[in-house]
């Protein structure tokens, strides 16, 4: 009797659960009701559309403009126009210079405004209206993470552009998101030995940090590695993104007793904060009997250009620099220079490489189906793209490669020759366990 009633309750509950599950399952894949194909935005005509979603306004607009140039160049090369750039040096290469899988590459562009809302609206437009199969771009980790989540839900691939926060392939990693750019963990690991060599073990650092996911991530990584050296952290002050004037944050540094200022800023923010720090005389100061130093953990040539004289002798790390002399870098700098008349930035480089990698993965998989493309990209090893041998780690979709430690050039030979590479930190020194940063990839959604 009691068995009987137990059985009946169970089955009723089971029925409820099953019907709930069915309702939820029915709700999930209806993101695109009008799509009868096996996967979202399957190309039907003779073209395949990619979505380039970059900041055209706001604190990261310079990077965004350079990213867009690189994307346009990549599309040209994919379609067999121009000199082919890195398609001549990439190994292994499945691309044939006739578009992707025989389809001509077309693109749509959008402005992220460095705001999550605007970036998602723009990406949705590309997916829903323009039929984009892959979204790429972003010059802010906050935006990249927001768009990556959207792409996962929508069932398209996201090839992250310039995003440096650990979270992008760490706690917010997604099956549909891939990042070629390095992260703050690698920056910290690469910078620490150089900082120790140059500044010693007995230092007190003061952080100014852009108040969003990337800033927090970089502050954490730099703290972790410098404190392991024996440095102390005096304070870590958060500043709003796009603040413009940093004088109220820099004044307290003067009398804090710190002898190193770490600027966790990027783009125009870094240009402004560094310029003001130098104007306030920080670099001429002596604290604790040592010369006051400034460190900018994430450096780019575009920022160096903006900051002018002030960057001389300042240490930082970078994903790539145009002065590298390997075949891939030379080919890319040459075709970018021929097209636009100046060398590309690291933002341009990573975006160009990401576009080629995506196209190559489609060609390898023989399909645009995101599940096939993801499989082709996971664990993909390649070289000739400017960073030496590189691997897309399958566990977290993060590229592992050498990291450059750079210093503002003391004697630049041209207006672009602003960073000198002081050390190439090998991949083995910056690699970490895939589960160190947490997060789950989830599963392919197509």
């Amino acid at each position, binding site marked *: 009797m009691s068995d009987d009633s137990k059985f009946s309750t169970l089955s009723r509950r089971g029925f409820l659960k099953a019907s709930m599950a069915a*309702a939820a399952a029915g709700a999930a894949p*209806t993101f695109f009701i009008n799509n009868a194909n096996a996967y979202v935005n399957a190309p039907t005509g003779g073209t395949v559309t990619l979505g380039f979603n970059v900041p055209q306004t706001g604190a990261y607009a310079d990077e965004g403009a350079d990213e867009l140039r690189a994307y346009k160049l990549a599309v040209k090369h994919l379609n067999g126009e121009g000199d082919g750039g890195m398609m001549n040096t990439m190994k292994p290469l499945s691309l044939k210079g006739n578009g992707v899988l025989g389809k001509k590459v077309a693109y749509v*562009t*959008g402005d992220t405004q460095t705001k999550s809302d605007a970036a998602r*609206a723009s990406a949705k*437009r590309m997916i829903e209206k323009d039929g984009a199969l892959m979204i790429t771009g972003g010059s802010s980790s906050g935006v990249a993470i*927001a768009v990556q989540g959207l792409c996962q839900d929508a069932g398209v691939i996201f090839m992250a552009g310039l995003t440096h926060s650990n979270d992008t392939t760490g706690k917010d990693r997604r099956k549909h998101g891939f990042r070629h750019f390095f992260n703050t963990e690698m920056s910290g690991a690469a910078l620490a030995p150089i900082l120790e060599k140059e500044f010693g073990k007995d230092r007190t650092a003061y952080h100014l940090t852009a108040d969003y996911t990337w800033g927090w991530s970089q502050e954490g990584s730099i703290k972790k590695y410098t404190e392991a050296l024996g440095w102390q952290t005096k304070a870590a002050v958060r500043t709003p993104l796009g603040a413009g004037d940093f004088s109220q944050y820099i004044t307290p540094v003067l009398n804090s007793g710190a002898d190193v200022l770490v600027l966790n800023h990027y783009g125009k923010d870094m240009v402004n904060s560094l310029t003001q720090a130098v104007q306030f005389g920080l670099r001429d100061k002596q604290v604790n009997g040592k010369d006051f130093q400034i460190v900018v953990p994430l450096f780019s040539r575009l920022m160096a250009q903006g900051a002018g004289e002030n960057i001389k002798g300042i240490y930082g790390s970078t994903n790539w620099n145009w002065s590298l002399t390997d075949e891939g870098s030379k080919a890319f700098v040459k075709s970018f220079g021929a097209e636009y008349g100046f060398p590309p930035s690291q933002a341009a480089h990573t975006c160009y490489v990401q576009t080629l990698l995506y196209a190559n993965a489609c060609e390898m998989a023989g399909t645009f189906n995101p599940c096939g493309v993801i499989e082709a990209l996971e664990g993909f090893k390649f070289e000739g793209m400017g960073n030496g041998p590189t691997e897309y780690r399958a566990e977290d979709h993060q590229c592992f490669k050498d990291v450059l430690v750079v210093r503002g050039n003391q004697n630049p030979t041209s207006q672009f020759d602003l960073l000198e590479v002081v050390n190439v930190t090998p991949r083995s020194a910056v690699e970490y366990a895939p589960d160190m940063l947490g997060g789950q990839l989830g599963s392919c959604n197509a």
Partner: protein
Amino acid sequence: MKELLKSNLVIMVIFAVIVLTAPAWLTPIGAGYPDILQKFAIFGLFAIGFNILFGLTGYLSFGHAAFLGVGSYTAVWSFKLLTMNVLPAIIFSTLMAGVFALVIGFISLRRSGIYFSILTLAFAQMSYSLAYSVLTPITNGETGLQLTLADPRVVDGMMGIPVTDSLPTTNLFGLAMSGYSGFYFCAVLLIVGFYVSLKIFRSPYGMKLRAIKSNQTRMKYTGFNTRPYLLSAFVISGMFAGLAGALMAATDPLAGAERMQWTASGEVVLMTILGGMGTLIGPLLGVGIIKYFENIFSALNESALHEVFSFLPGWLEEVMVWISHHFVGEGWHLTLGTLFMLVVIFLPGGVMEGITRLSAYLKSKFKGSDEITSEKVSEDAS
């Protein structure tokens, strides 16, 4: 015809048909995809609510985005803590925004005119800064509040909805809130919101609000206490904003502090003025124009322009593309600014004034002695 348009039922039927068929008639101009349709409906609600305050009482609130943001945050928290069903989220958000509006309105409405505007602006900027800094544990700062796999979702758990390794999506009893179904949900709420607005416009209550706009002092001398009317209008419009914020979160479960920034408050003012303040339909037209510019014009790039002008001879095509590319893409603000200036200078009553003038002109042309009909309401307002 004239008599017909006076009937609420007829107006509502026409409005509902226009809104629900929007995907069909907006497709030819490239705005028939779900995301922009949702934005039209959501900001439509926001502007309708704003117009109840600004259009009827003339009190210009420069901080309405705060209620939008409060609505969004409340909705996302409801998704995180309770259930992915949008119904509780919408109810909580609207109420929460109402409470905020009551507090802010109670203080701000002690002043009128520019002082009122500044007070509301101050409150909104204060909310924005708080969301950005001190309240980061609640708002997740600049990154924005997002769903995670680890969220409790208590109600969903009790209902036995299975936990998968991908993020759950928002729904209304299984109906997805993204794509076209999301739009129809927003559209139905827009129609309901419009009906509420219509009723207010055509009620004695609406008349009192208009009287406050025309001469508050005289109104007070006749023995009316205007404060409760103002405060209730403020709260109603704040609740509309909260509802709009909840819908933004429902169609895209993410809430960021930038929704509260003064630019967002300014946007709804622009929408209302551009379309025609104090009219029923005007704010919706303003929403349509601004959102269309933001989403479609900003996405035009040179290759798209080349396609548009490809019918012209080669050299002329180049010239036209060169001229027009300054006004699209990242230059869409320039086009919008120019349009706004033209409207304010030549049509102070917004696009609705243009339509009224046009129809009057056409009537005199074709010797139709009919009075202006549907714009009657707008005439009353001004």
